[in-house]
């Protein structure tokens, strides 16, 4: 895919199996967000995005949680989550009872009932992230694309959000693709990691196969240490003090 004739990604052929959690890692500018947007049909590209053997339908097959979602200040959490039902409503329709039920369910599953009437501008970072996730969940799409779901959160809330995604995914059989900067967190949650660099797939495999010093250093630089503290590979930055 390319912007203004400049190819920023690919060519690549990536198949994600149903129910899998795929993590996209790579340095800034590697093409992670662009790949997600291409899957959504938002970035100019050649080729197709197939879901279950046919072209993906806008809004119905794939739900997207952007890195920096626009949260209309005065909108209530409930009304925001309700917008997730948009793909299910025709041009001249309005929300059905089922749409309202799905919204209630999404609010409930993310523990947002108590703050359903609050305005978005009053939410904390963690609450806002849950609201965005609830909206994506209300879409009831089989595939969930998450662009840096933890980047605006502290370690604890980041962990909470990923745990939440994991349990939702297991309960609903969702296929999840996450662009994520935190390599250690990525390694602990996902089934499969794809390392992108300059628009190309550099590595693709289990977290233990991809998260190695030899594998990561060409993309991230030499200051990368991978240690194992028992919970899988832990990636830590280390200053290069050789000289």
């Amino acid at each position: 895919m390319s912007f203004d004739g400049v190819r920023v990604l690919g060519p690549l052929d990536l198949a994600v199996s149903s129910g899998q959690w795929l993590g996209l890692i790579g340095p800034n500018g590697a093409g992670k967000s662009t790949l997600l947007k291409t899957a959504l049909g938002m970035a100019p590209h050649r080729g197709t995005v197939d879901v279950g053997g046919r072209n993906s339908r806008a809004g119905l097959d794939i739900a997207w949680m952007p890195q920096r979602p626009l949260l209309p200040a005065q909108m209530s959490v409930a009304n925001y989550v309700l917008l997730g039902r948009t793909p299910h409503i025709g041009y001249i329709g309005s929300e059905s009872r089922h749409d309202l039920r799905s919204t209630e369910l999404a609010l409930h599953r993310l523990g947002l009932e108590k703050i359903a009437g609050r305005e978005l501008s009053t939410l904390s970072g963690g609450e806002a992230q849950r609201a965005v996730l609830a909206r994506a969940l209300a879409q009831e799409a089989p595939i969930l694309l998450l662009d840096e779901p933890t980047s605006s959160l502290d370690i604890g809330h980041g962990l909470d959000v990923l745990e939440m995604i994991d349990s939702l995914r297991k309960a609903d059989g969702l296929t999840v693709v996450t662009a994520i900067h935190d390599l250690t967190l990525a390694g602990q949650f996902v089934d499969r990691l794809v390392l992108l660099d300059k628009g190309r797939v550099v590595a693709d495999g289990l977290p233990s196969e991809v998260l190695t010093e030899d594998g990561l250093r060409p993309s991230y630089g030499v200051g990368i240490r991978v240690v194992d503290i028992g919970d899988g590979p832990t990636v830590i930055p280390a200053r290069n003090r050789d000289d």
Partner: protein
Amino acid sequence: MRLETPTQAVAPRRVGAGSWVVAVLVLAVIGVASLLIGSVELPVAGVLGALVDKLPLFSVDHDLTDTELRILYDIRFPRVVMGALVGAVLAVAGAGYQGVFRNPLADPYLLGVAAGAGLGATLVIGLGAATALIAPVAFVGGLAAVAVTYALSRTVGGRTTTSLILAGVAVAAFATAFQTFLLQRNYDTLRQVYAWILGRLGTVGWGDVLTLLPYAVVASGVLLVLRRFLDVLALGDEESAALGVNVPRVRRLVVLAATLATAAAVSVSGLIGFVGIIVPHTVRLLTGWSYRVIIPLSLVYGAAFLMLADLIARTVVAPAELPIGVVTAFLGAPFFLLVLRTMKGSS
């Protein structure tokens, strides 16, 4: 406001029954007052009797003379209806523009309709052509200006709304400059053009009402149907697209409907400023963020506001009249500051 149970909390925003009752009452009171009050004094009981008499199934005796009836039905009535139509169109078009451009300062003249129509009217008046041509040429001028704005924005930078708005600014500036040049060359027409620009409802008849009506109906219909999407667009273009909304199509439809109706309104009534901004903002201040409420209520309150402004315009210096654009701006400018203050306080 906190809603504790999810069944209460999860409901799309709608205009409540109470809001409808208030809106219709306000509209009715201002409408009837506008019919009762004018430069020629008509007996109140007679006018009310004659109005009720016009309703189907009612037959009421009234003591209005034929001249008085003519004043009521052929002069005052079309003027009041026209005020309502123009106000409704400008307000709802403004709300639509604000929605698709996610810009609270957008008004229906944003993309150059007003400047294009003004240039068209100036050309007709300056060339000494028949006054009957003013409206159609102004209509074409307004649409042409928006078409040029669209074409320009395509050439300079893709499909972002910023390039569209900037192109609109450029087109409006160009049209206005050309208009000023024409005026400089034809001083004798200055007064006539000036009067047109300030807007007037004084000379309209039922024919003008019928000209504007189809545009008003179609535009209102399109905006009412699409108002749900305006709330989705608040999430931004990309998220809206990810939710399955065809953003360019929705934006095009809204702009097209609003522009057609605005051009039609401007061509029959001149440039009446501020209605497209202050009415949607008042509704927004009173009812909140949702276009599902703002669009329908803007229609009603736009109609009521312009009828009221016209009532003021034709009574405060009677028997002379103030240009209606002066009245709307006079009310609009201070109000606009109030809106800005409130927005600053809440953000």
